[in-house]
């Protein structure tokens, strides 16, 4: 089934598909961020394909490894055809990706999680707020430049050093 999708995409969207490859049996395609809704609508509504289920949206931070920092990953599944396709798009810091909430309402929370963890904004999202972290949290925890642990234990001997640790990204300015 994925091979039918491969053929269709090659003929219909040859100019929009940047990369198309198979890895461990799964069909992966890479497109530009602006083309995501169109490609997904095509995959969802095309009668032969019917990728009608959005399984998963997530992102990866390739800081220092690639020119474009983030990669957003969409996993679509076709319930009638039992097939899966992985769609990827790359955005840089500050760059927005279009939302998929108009195609699948399940995209709402999953895009919020990507925003919360990576700071990637989704244009047109109805409620792009933090979901797992506190509303006043500073920083985006899944970014590679966000340290896993940073807090210095407060003892009398390092009282003077604590000021430097105050710069921990999620602490903000008002924390003693």
């Amino acid at each position: 089934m994925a091979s039918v999708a491969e053929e269709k995409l090659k003929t219909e969207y040859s100019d929009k598909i940047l990369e198309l490859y198979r890895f461990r049996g799964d069909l992966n395609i890479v497109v530009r961020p602006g083309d995501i809704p169109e490609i997904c609508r095509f995959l969802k509504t095309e009668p032969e394909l019917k990728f009608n289920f959005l399984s998963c949206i997530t992102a990866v931070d390739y800081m220092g490894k690639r020119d474009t920092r983030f990669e957003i990953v969409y996993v679509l599944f076709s319930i009638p055809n039992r097939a899966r396709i992985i769609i990827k798009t790359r955005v840089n810091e500050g760059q927005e990706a279009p939302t998929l909430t108009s195609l699948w309402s399940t995209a709402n929370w999953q895009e919020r999680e990507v925003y919360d963890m990576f700071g990637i904004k989704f244009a047109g999202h109805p409620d792009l707020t933090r979901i797992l972290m506190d509303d006043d949290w500073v920083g985006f925890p899944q970014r590679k430049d966000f340290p896993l642990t940073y807090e210095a234990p407060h003892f009398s001997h390092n009282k003077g050093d604590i000021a430097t640790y105050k710069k921990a990204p999620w602490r903000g300015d008002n924390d003693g």
Partner: protein
Amino acid sequence: MANRETMIINLGPQHPATHGVLRIELEIDGETIVKARPIIGYLHTGIEKNMEAKTYTQALTMTDRMDYLAPMSNNLVYVGAVEKLMEVEVPSRAEYVRVIMTELTRIASHLVWLGTHAIDIGAMSMLLYCFREREKIVQMYEFVSGVRMMSSYFRVGGLANDIPAGFETRVKDILDSFPAKIDEYEGLLTNNRIWLNRTVGVGAISAEDAIDAGLTGPSLRGSGISWDIRKSNPYSYYDKFEFDIPTGEKGDVYDRYKVRLEEMRQSLRIVSQAVGGIPEGPYKTADKRISLPSRKETLQGMEQLIHHFKIVVHGFEPPEGDVYFSIESPKGEIGCYIVSDGTKRPYRVHFRPPSFVNISALSRLVKGRMVADVIACIGSIDIVLGEIDR
């Protein structure tokens, strides 16, 4: 009517029926719900971030702690993803045990769901019965892995250790006693007038809406969609066993209840087919990249001892690449997306938690219903907050 005001009330985060630490902001007009907004994140522990700082084997132990009611299913999706990435062959003995243990896990998870769901809407005694039966499965966890809950029993390439002697007998004990117990639960609830009043027609969702909202597992099948990853994309040895996929019709709380009860019977059916046929042979792969040399080998050979040390201390290094692997957990589709950069630590791990996606559909289920129905709806989509917040 002009000038009608609505009121906002908080349900939770400290509320016994929220199955963890879930807060729901309810906008109500009298007793009718206008809008429900689940607020999550109280149990966020950064499991995905923490995994990036651990070796592949160390990271496995964190998967137990997401859906703590179904640790074996979480183990399976994680090891399955790493095995897909590394293209590891798993011996058939290990696959049989994996199927048996994940199906017992499904029953255990459904038992906790049934007990808590029933006590939430007033059937007090169910909780005691369900936990009595679940105890037998938890003891099975202890029997095979030494731990009652956070088992980490499945490892990349096989199992942590071979099944102990007497495994089959204990599984058969469960197989003998459980069908009667499930009938007993059905006898208490299925035609119970109070149960029917609280569940029939409550929280109904159509098949299209369920797909749009991303519901999976029994919550989707209750709406009549016959999609189960064990059948549609068989992993492990599920294609070797016969079982049916129960579905509902209306997609209400009652249908989801019926689907889960039938699923427990089907799980017993799978276990009964598997338990007689566990083949002899190794319980872990022969792949030297990940398989620890045996104790005897390490005592006799220097190279084997070094190899053992190297795998334990340094870990193994999957090739570069990224894979998505998903299985049917008791709650729905749990997926694992792993990115490897060729080092001993995963570059990125993401779980697609079924509870997270299912709870996001809560607002649709409860709109226009009474406050008391919210409790029934939360129970019926079977969430675990550890998995939602990770």
